[in-house]
């Protein structure tokens, strides 16, 4: 029976990752007036189109080593923002600047795409679908190292062990296929794979949402350890306000594509100003909670 080995961070020496992380002058991420419009077909035979504004004028700035939460419900545009940041989705308006470089336009060359990949990596929600089921964990991380760094085979082998260790996995777990790992372990692999590229910014899209409570706590601690050690910046997308409280220092609240409130996480969660933020907070079950009927979504 495989047993998860949970490292507490204190027993792992700081790996070269912390020193290797690229130094950036100015904010790690700077976004101005970001907008996304989807063309939706409708009507008879799809001849009529209408524009659906998924994100309307989001602006934020994130310093190196800081963590920004993007919260909202389904349809708020939070995942669309993540996808635009990493370049899976084109942008309809505004600018995105990551690690001092503009990435508002689609990358035109392979080298440009690769460079963007080395500046920003993403961890998705579902650890069961975000790893190739036929690729061993070592090979999956090795691929990223080959792509983004200049290393000898020996150096890469060493680096894989370091990365696995950093996320609390053993060397032995590196040789297996994803199906031999639990959900929490797979999410650790997804994080190790993202770290392998040594990005300045990590985008985490509901990265702990699908995990069991006891595993969620492990991954939250791991993410906080890594940020402390590497000074990496996080964009943490979540619908879970309690988790956002633990992982971020600033928060942006989205409702139907519009930013309704943004600022320090503590201030937003302790003294929210916007009615929608208040409603979100009031909807979280806690001791003494009485659910209210608010009407149909």
């Amino acid at each position, binding site marked *: 029976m495989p047993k998860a080995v*949970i490292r507490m961070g204190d027993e792992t020496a700081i790996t070269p990752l912390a020193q290797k992380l690229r130094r950036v002058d100015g904010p790690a991420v700077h976004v101005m007036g970001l907008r996304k419009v989807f063309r939706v077909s409708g009507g008879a035979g799809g001849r009529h189109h209408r524009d659906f504004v998924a994100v309307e004028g989001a602006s934020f700035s994130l310093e190196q080593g800081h963590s920004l939460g993007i919260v909202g419900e389904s349809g708020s545009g939070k995942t669309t923002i993540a996808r635009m940041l990493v370049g899976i989705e084109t942008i309809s308006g505004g600018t995105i600047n990551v690690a001092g470089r503009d990435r508002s336009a689609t990358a035109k060359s392979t080298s440009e795409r690769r460079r963007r990949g080395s500046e920003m990596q993403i961890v998705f929600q579902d650890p069961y679908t975000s790893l190739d089921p036929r690729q061993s964990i070592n090979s999956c991380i090795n691929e990223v190292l080959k792509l983004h760094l200049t290393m000898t085979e020996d150096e890469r082998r060493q680096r894989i062990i370091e990365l696995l260790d950093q996320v609390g996995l053993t060397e032995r777990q590196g040789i297996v296929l994803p199906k031999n790992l639990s959900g929490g372990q797979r999410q650790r692999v997804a994080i190790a794979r993202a770290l392998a590229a040594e990005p300045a910014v990590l985008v985490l899209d509901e990265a702990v949402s699908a995990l069991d409570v*006891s595993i969620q*706590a492990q991954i939250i*601690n791991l993410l906080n350890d890594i940020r402390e050690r590497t000074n990496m910046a996080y964009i943490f997308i979540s619908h879970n306000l309690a988790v956002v409280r633990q992982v971020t220092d600033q928060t942006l609240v989205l409702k139907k594509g519009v930013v309704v409130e943004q600022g320090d996480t503590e201030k937003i969660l302790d003294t929210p100003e916007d009615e929608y933020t208040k409603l979100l907070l009031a*909807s979280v*079950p*806690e001791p003494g*909670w009485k659910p209210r*009927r608010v009407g149909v*979504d």
Partner: protein
Amino acid sequence: MTHLLNIENLSVDLVVHRRYRKVLQDVSITVERAEVVSLVGESGSGKSMTARSVLNLLPAQGKMSGDIAFDGQSLMNASDKDWQKFRATRAAMIFQDPRASINPVHRIGDFLTEALVHNRGMDRHEALARAATLLEQVGIDDAKRRLRQYPHELSGGMLQRAMIASVLLIEPELILADEPTTALDVTTQADVIAILDDLRAQRDMAMLFITHDLELAAAFSDRVAVMYAGYIVEISTPTQLHSRPLHPYTAALLRSRPMLHERTARLPQISGRPLSAFEAPPGCPFQDRCPYVQAQCGGSLPQPQLINGSVVRCHRANELELVSTVNAEGGHSHG
């Protein structure tokens, strides 16, 4: 007085990779009329399988032993026809994902009235009229138009309301709700829970509510059962569970939750991962992850014992003083 639902020493084995594997072990719990009992636990703990067993909805070749009695009558030797009748009239299930469990090619109206027309022989028009009334009760406006729509035309929250309406239509004495709000947004979840809460007060319906959310279970139920590796490890009232948990797993689970109102420098984590029943070692199923483990824990399976009105399965329950929050000395810092 007889219990509405009485599950006694229920064990379930399912075929996984052509081998029988244990998924439930010696589960005993009761649900009284108009009572809400929550089953909480992590994946593989057996909470869904417990609910499915009650309706005999286990996967093919599933084996059940022990006893399930409803209103004083054992269901263990019921025929398929009896089970069908039981499911059509006395107990019904609300599933987690309405999109996966409502037939997408049937109109909402047909989905809602199927049970009434087929099982009760009710006139279709009368059934539709009742369905429309119920849709309005669960907060769906313009019910007549909704009845003509297909599932894809409704949002997730609305479709889950339609599922609740479909269950209420047969006026069951017991509702089994399997993570009914997990796929919904928080504001919609609050709304759906409020609806369920209103309805059980008005109609005296009992509910077995399955969730992974300890807070939700506490806010909504009369009693909470915590499951781990196919066993019920603790049954308690929400207040007691949060103020004085008796099982180390309950306490650890409560402590590892991220709190909404305060940042915890480091969440107290439970090492390892949740086990399924078939992986559990002999003796206490939680021993490998338990901070209080002793030699006796690997020896024999702890039997359920009663302490201050709660049921707990732990060899050391009498001597341990457990807390549910990181700063438990000061209690909850907010409310």
